[in-house]
């Protein structure tokens, strides 16, 4: 029997690759704003966006040689912050095929990898679906 997808108000499908433009920044801000207003949100990452939640990224980015003592959180740490702050209203999924295809290894424990053939179940569980960026 397949996984039951908890119903949400919105599904954000994050297709755009990180490091290429400010899509990731915008998506995170949008998710935070919706959660703050009490919405239930799920995120499905596709393509290179699946790399945002790799455990290998650790808690922090590599040191900044110009500001050695400053801590710069990794995207993995930031997604963990979101999941911890909104444990009952945020759900984070990733496309297993895209993740495997890019060699993205272990993900945060709260991240659920799903086969692309299951994407329609996530769409069906959401009131609205927004696709951000292109793969």
């Amino acid at each position, binding site marked *: 029997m397949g996984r039951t997808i908890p119903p949400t108000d919105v599904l954000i499908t994050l297709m755009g690759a990180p490091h290429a433009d*400010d899509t*990731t920044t915008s998506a995170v801000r949008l998710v935070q704003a919706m959660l703050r207003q009490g919405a239930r949100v799920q995120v499905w990452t596709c393509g290179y966006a699946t790399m945002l939640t790799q455990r290998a990224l650790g808690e922090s*980015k590599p040191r900044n040689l*110009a500001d050695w003592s*400053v801590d710069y959180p990794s*995207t993995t740490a930031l997604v963990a912050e*979101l999941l911890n702050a909104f444990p009952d209203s945020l759900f984070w999924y990733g496309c297993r095929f895209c993740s495997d295809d890019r060699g993205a290894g272990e993900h945060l424990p709260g991240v659920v990898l799903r086969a692309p053939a299951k994407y329609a179940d996530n769409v069906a569980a959401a009131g609205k679906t927004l696709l951000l960026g292109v793969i």
Partner: protein
Amino acid sequence: MAETLAIMERAYRGALEKQFFDALYLAVELHRQLGGMDLLLRGPAVSYAVAVAHVGSIEVGGRKVDTLSDPRRDLIRLQESGVAVWVEESDLAEFGVDGPAALLPGVRAAAPGEMARRWPDYRTVCFL
């Protein structure tokens, strides 16, 4: 004279995931290793040099993130390292910048094609 001309045309490439580690951070190293650099900002990248622009913080979960990419700070750091920063003047109006007076001190405006005519003077021309 600088041996490298770096041209930046694309801007705003991952403020949250890159933070300090963006193309202008790389430029510091290229300037140091390649015998000095001039930097030309074109297209939307001209807005990097606007003096009054401000990079704020965002909230992610319960955490305040105040380490987003800050291109103005990076440009000042590059200038302090000896990099000459130019903007293509015709792109200022196109992207809503109110002329060269709105730019960081020391940033110079180039007429269209002016820097392209100087390409033969450089050993390396690259895009960042």
